[in-house]
């Protein structure tokens, strides 16, 4: 094949030194890991560039324009600058923990990329059969880094930031995990590639079956990543910079990279589970026509586009919305997101039960096969999508009923507007009794 001809040449070259088994299980994964780490690091760097550009366009300005054409070299210049900056460690800090916390953050964010299916076949490093569980587990290790950084800095702002982040990430992890369960009931597997294949063989994206689940996952993902409007751990106006107040230079930028990498991870998982990952209609025809590597590359591109769209939503929200307060954030997590995730699970179970019950009722066929996840016929899909979107309203209605007494529920209707008074001119000062 034209695109990846050199790959075969390289394989032949390696065969002179190693056995084919060593190459398959050791050398190729190493090359893949190197490629993924490099490309993801670059991607993360350019995500900062994109964020700055998009925020600039939202705010009626230009953004970086000076370094390279349209400021395209800005992330590289920033990286270089941060590398040569002083790596300052405060006198009373817990040196070793302070030293290692950024590495934990960045490692936990990057390890997750090992199971992310960027494309079919060779475009995924490891297709683990508990992929999704691994993603959730490893990304929660990132919380540890934030707590350690906040604690070891020996600064009150950093400590408050660390405390906030631990509470926030622990509560939103729950909502995030619960939101995914609905989709997993359709896919019947935890392998990320398996989830994509299940959607491909069913010719559907699970966002249609699980609109509520998708929204819940996205919201709790934003909160899990400490992004605005949930960026309390690093709330600039209150806590200066939160847990990384005392960090500088490369160590600070490692936290920064970890944040963006974690953002890419959540976007990638959302794209995989709800938007069909690298699956896109008609792309499979390339494989049928024998262009295997081209098929992989196009699928990879499809995946990147989907992830970018979700990343754009991240940026968009950040530069539009004000920040929540700490107690409100906890309210949203425990009073809204977790109950709605539970309702979503129940509704999905009911939907699947209904579709299975209807299969064979008065000659109706709703299920095609159960081998590769739940594959439905057209009528089955219609039922599922209708229940899915009805579920949005059912969830919203139930939760408003539960939460309608809470203070923050409907603030706008609770209050009258200000009044305009045309005061008489030259009237002396008011007394308290007139108020």
């Amino acid at each position, binding site marked *: 094949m034209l695109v990846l001809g050199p790959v075969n040449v390289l394989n032949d070259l390696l065969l002179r030194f190693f056995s084919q088994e060593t190459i398959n299980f050791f050398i190729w994964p190493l090359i893949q890991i190197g490629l993924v780490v490099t490309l993801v690091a670059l991607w993360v760097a350019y995500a900062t560039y994109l964020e700055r550009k998009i*925020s600039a366009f*939202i*705010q*009626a*300005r230009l953004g970086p324009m000076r370094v390279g054409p349209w400021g395209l070299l800005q992330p590289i210049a920033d990286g270089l600058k941060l590398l040569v900056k002083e790596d300052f460690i405060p006198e009373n800090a817990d040196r070793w923990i302070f030293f290692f916390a950024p590495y934990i953050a960045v490692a936990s964010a990057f390890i997750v990329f090992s199971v992310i299916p960027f494309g079919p076949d060779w475009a995924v490093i490891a297709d683990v059969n508990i992929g999704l569980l691994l993603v959730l587990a490893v990304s929660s290790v990132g919380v540890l880094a934030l707590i350690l950084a906040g604690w070891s800095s020996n600064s*009150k*702002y950093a400590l*408050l930031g660390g405390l906030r982040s631990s509470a926030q990430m622990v509560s939103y992890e729950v909502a995030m995990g619960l939101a995914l369960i609905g989709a997993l009931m359709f896919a019947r597997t935890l392998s990320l590639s398996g989830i994509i294949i299940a959607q491909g063989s069913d010719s559907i994206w699970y966002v249609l079956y699980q609109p509520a689940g998708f929204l819940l996952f996205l919201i709790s993902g934003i909160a899990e990543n400490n992004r*605005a*409007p949930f*960026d*309390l751990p690093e*709330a*600039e*106006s*209150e*806590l*200066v910079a939160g847990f990384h107040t005392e960090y500088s230079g490369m160590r600070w930028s490692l936290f920064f990279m970890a944040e963006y990498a974690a953002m890419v991870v959540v976007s990638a998982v959302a794209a995989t589970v709800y938007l069909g990952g690298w699956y896109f209609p008609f792309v499979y025809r390339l494989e049928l026509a024998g262009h295997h590597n081209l098929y992989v590359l196009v699928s990879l591109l499809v995946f990147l586009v989907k992830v970018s769209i979700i990343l754009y939503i991240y940026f968009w929200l950040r*530069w*539009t*919305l*004000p*920040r*929540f*307060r*700490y*107690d*409100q954030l906890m309210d949203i997590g425990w009073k809204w997101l977790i109950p709605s995730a539970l309702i979503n699970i129940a509704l999905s179970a009911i939907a699947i039960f209904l579709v299975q019950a209807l299969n064979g009722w008065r000659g109706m066929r709703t299920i095609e096969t159960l081998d590769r996840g739940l594959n439905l016929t057209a009528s089955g899909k219609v039922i599922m999508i209708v229940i899915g979107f009805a579920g949005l309203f059912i969830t919203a209605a139930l939760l408003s009923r539960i939460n309608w007494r809470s*203070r*923050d529920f409907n*603030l*706008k209707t*609770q*209050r*009258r*507007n*200000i*009044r*305009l*008074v*045309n*005061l*008489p*001119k*030259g*009237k*002396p*000062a*008011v007394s*308290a009794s*007139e*108020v």
Partner: protein
Amino acid sequence: MHQVEIATTQETLLDSPEMVLNMGPQHPSTHGVLRVVLRLDGETVIDLDCDIGYLHRGMEKIAENRMYTMIAPYWDRLDYIAAVSNGLVWVETVEQMMGLPVPPRAHYLRTILTELNRIASHLLWLATHALDIGAVTVLLWALREREEILKIFERQFGARLTCHAWRVGGMPNDAYDDFDKDVRQFANNFPKRLDEYETVLSENRIWLSRTVGIGVISGTEAIAIGLSGPALRGSGVPWDVRKSRPYAAYADMDFDVPLGENGDTYDRYLVRLEEMRQSRRIIVQALENLPDGPVNAKLPKVVKPPVGDYYHSIEGPKGEIGCYLVSDGTAQPYRVRVRPPSFVNLQALKQMCVGHLVADVVAIIGTLDIVLGEIDR
């Protein structure tokens, strides 16, 4: 001196669940060099103390050693966000003490330009207040509009921030040629832009939940503390110096005063937004009725107010800014005292903050709209 003692020993830190957090003087959202010492239980504020004076320049003392006409530019440095209003209070105090007949055209131009300054100041307040609560985009949108006003100032006064706008007896020079066009253009664009900010904030659930019921102060309490300006009117007290003791050309203007109901941060936000609209209304009216004539009164060679004392105040963007002047009949004042609205408004901080969270302290400092240059003088 401070009511909140800073717990420094290990023992006190470990024994109590309380923590003392030192906010400022270097902090992104204390609006300058305000230092606030917070005593926290978790994140709830249980006590609070303000420490000011980091920007003290001895303005009032300096004024005792300057001629009357030389003091006006110092007054620009009090509340540097609203330099035009501050300059006005000084020249008007001297003029009224001396009984100088200021020509009507100067009065009208003063009205237009101070109202433009009020809008500029409120826009900067909106920008920083929204930034404190986390809406970063509003900052740049508001600064874009403020820029239009600063351009007008630059062409009229030659400076953008500390304008030295007025002279005793009138204005240094008449309005520049395109003044009318520029101001009209701004007045035409402005309401649309203001509506834009409202779509981002006023109905926003997060904005509502961050501002409704935060920093509540009742009208009686507000009067007791001595609040003025939007902070007072947000609590529903109908008091506006422009109405009660009209100065410049405000007696001829037709405008409304917005009053809040609940005295919380959201009400003060709405009041300030509405004040911007009313300011625009005043500007358009003054521009329509702008009289012709000179802009300067005939002054004696040396400005020497008669022996005695005099108090005059105007409605600055932050509140009532006043000037108490004691003259001994020489060319220099015997004593000058500024009534600083930000300083008085800041006194309400403790009452408003206790029981709220750290994040609310930032929102409340924002809603009080303080400028440290004026607090410390």
